[in-house]
């Protein structure tokens, strides 16, 4: 009997210890490192971080990127989920194609869009054939901040809409068809059914997709470096720069703490704003 009781703990222990050592400990270490100064604890690293020229840009750019890309992705993913519902033949093939970007890193996505958008890339070729430009044109330098921003947003949307779509489609499968059928019997239009019946029932999935996506979007940096180099600093690319090129792990840790704080805050906001009372769950 003793052995029977100990068994679940024995089974969970390795994973628990592993996450304690490689998740909880570095979490505490990062915070400690960020607040450590020569003499004790303080905000010195954060002050130095905030005084850096790139800091403001990094904050603004990160929020712009997340603020534009995530809502667009949610809309696109909802549209894709609805389209899938209307598809009969070829659903599996379409699903596979749409989920391919799920397996790509943000670095790969950045390189893909670099191939399309560089000076002599395909976008310029098409624009040239349409007679809009006369020769190779640069879009990805600090002189064209809006085009650079648009390119990064497009690459992010291209890569990570798939994950939102998968979570939403998985959620749609859990929504019973009877509700929509009932609404349609009472004369609701398809659009109204989607807005008033499907969407509210999908709220838990939308919530988890938003949490997942937002946390990952705050973390994206390789896509930014691949497309824009240092021209578009974001928080995590700055953390990487401080750690890697400036050999200042404490400042990098300060950036990490900022990113983690924002991620945690975003998660809490989503959990509160999109809360579904237990009685309303599908």
């Amino acid at each position, binding site marked *: 009997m003793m052995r029977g009781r100990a068994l*679940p*703990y024995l*089974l*969970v222990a*390795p*994973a628990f210890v*592993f*996450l304690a050592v*490689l*998740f909880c400990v*570095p*979490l505490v*270490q*990062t915070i400690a490192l960020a607040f450590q100064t020569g003499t004790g604890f303080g905000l010195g690293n954060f002050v130095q971080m905030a005084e850096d020229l790139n800091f403001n840009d990094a904050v603004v750019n990160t929020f712009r990127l997340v603020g534009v890309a995530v809502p667009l992705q949610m809309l696109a993913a909802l549209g894709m989920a609805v*389209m899938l519902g209307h598809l009969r033949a070829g659903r*599996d093939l*379409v*699903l596979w*194609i749409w989920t*391919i970007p*799920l*397996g790509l*890193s*943000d*670095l*790969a996505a950045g*390189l*893909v*869009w*670099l*191939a*399309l958008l560089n000076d*002599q890339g395909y976008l310029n*070729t098409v624009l040239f*054939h349409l007679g809009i430009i006369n020769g190779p044109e640069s879009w990805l330098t600090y002189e064209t901040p809006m085009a650079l921003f648009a390119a990064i947003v497009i690459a992010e949307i*291209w890569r990570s809409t798939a*994950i939102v779509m*998968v*979570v939403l*489609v*998985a959620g749609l*499968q859990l929504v019973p068809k009877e509700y929509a059928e009932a609404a349609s019997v009472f004369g609701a239009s398809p659009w109204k059914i989607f807005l008033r019946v499907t969407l509210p029932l999908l709220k838990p*999935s939308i919530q*988890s997709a938003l*949490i997942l996506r937002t*946390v990952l979007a705050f*973390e994206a*940096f390789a896509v930014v*470096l*691949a497309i824009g*180099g240092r021209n578009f600093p974001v928080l995590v690319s700055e*953390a*990487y720069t401080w*750690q890697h090129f400036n050999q200042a*792990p404490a400042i990098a*840790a300060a950036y*990490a703490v900022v*990113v*983690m704080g924002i991620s*945690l805050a975003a998660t809490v906001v989503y959990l509160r704003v999109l809360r579904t009372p237990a009685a309303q769950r599908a």
Partner: protein
Amino acid sequence: MTTRRGIYLLGVVVLCAWVLVPIWLIAANALGGQALIAAWPKPLVPTQMSLDTLRVFLAIEGVGRALWISFEVAVLCMVFSVALGLPAGYALARYSFRGANVFRVMILLTRAFPVGILALPLTVGFIRLGLYDTALGVALMHTALALPFAVLVSASLFQAIPRELEEAAWVFGCTRLSAAWRVVLPLAAPGVVATAIFAFVISWNEVFAASVLSARNRTLTAYLLAVLADSPLTYQFAGGLLLIVPSVGFIFLVRRHLFAMWGIASR
């Protein structure tokens, strides 16, 4: 009604092209050689494609090695995630025990943080332990990313397998362990394989932790990021293509399980 269907179908086709065309174009760029990179305006259908660029790229010192290290790290991450995740998932599915919720909260907490960033403070400890700049070190960090996913997915895999099957096996003289091994595991196998592949992909694609925890023994992602600023476009595209190809294949393998996995992992 048919116009509505037509619009949906058009949307589906456009979105398929939206995913596939960029991949096709980077492949064309990676395989078209220096001539294509320099060409202006670019031919929309490349005139000649060969594996020469890819071959030259792979022959660069460090590239083949980085490819091998990426593979090594991803396999280690896959093995660790499954070895640690399956038992924990089994325990969550089959037993109610005190402290189970603490573990669940810990798993859920990993989702509110960008875990890769936590590699930053690990460098010091890893140097001391001799793990810095090794495949094992990077794989350990990647396992922290993939393990919560593996636990959640395997827990629900086991939940879906009726307890009665296991109990029948005990009646016929199986021990708990052999019943789990010979009855439960074969039933869960397809899902377990999908989970393992996903752990591989998570590791294969990870950039930040891999860059921070290595200096010379870099994974392909870390290598590409490090040489990004000073390598010619041809090689950047060849590297991008090398990153993409295995991922596309793996997503194809797990496509049937994707929705079940993410439905579970995001509940």
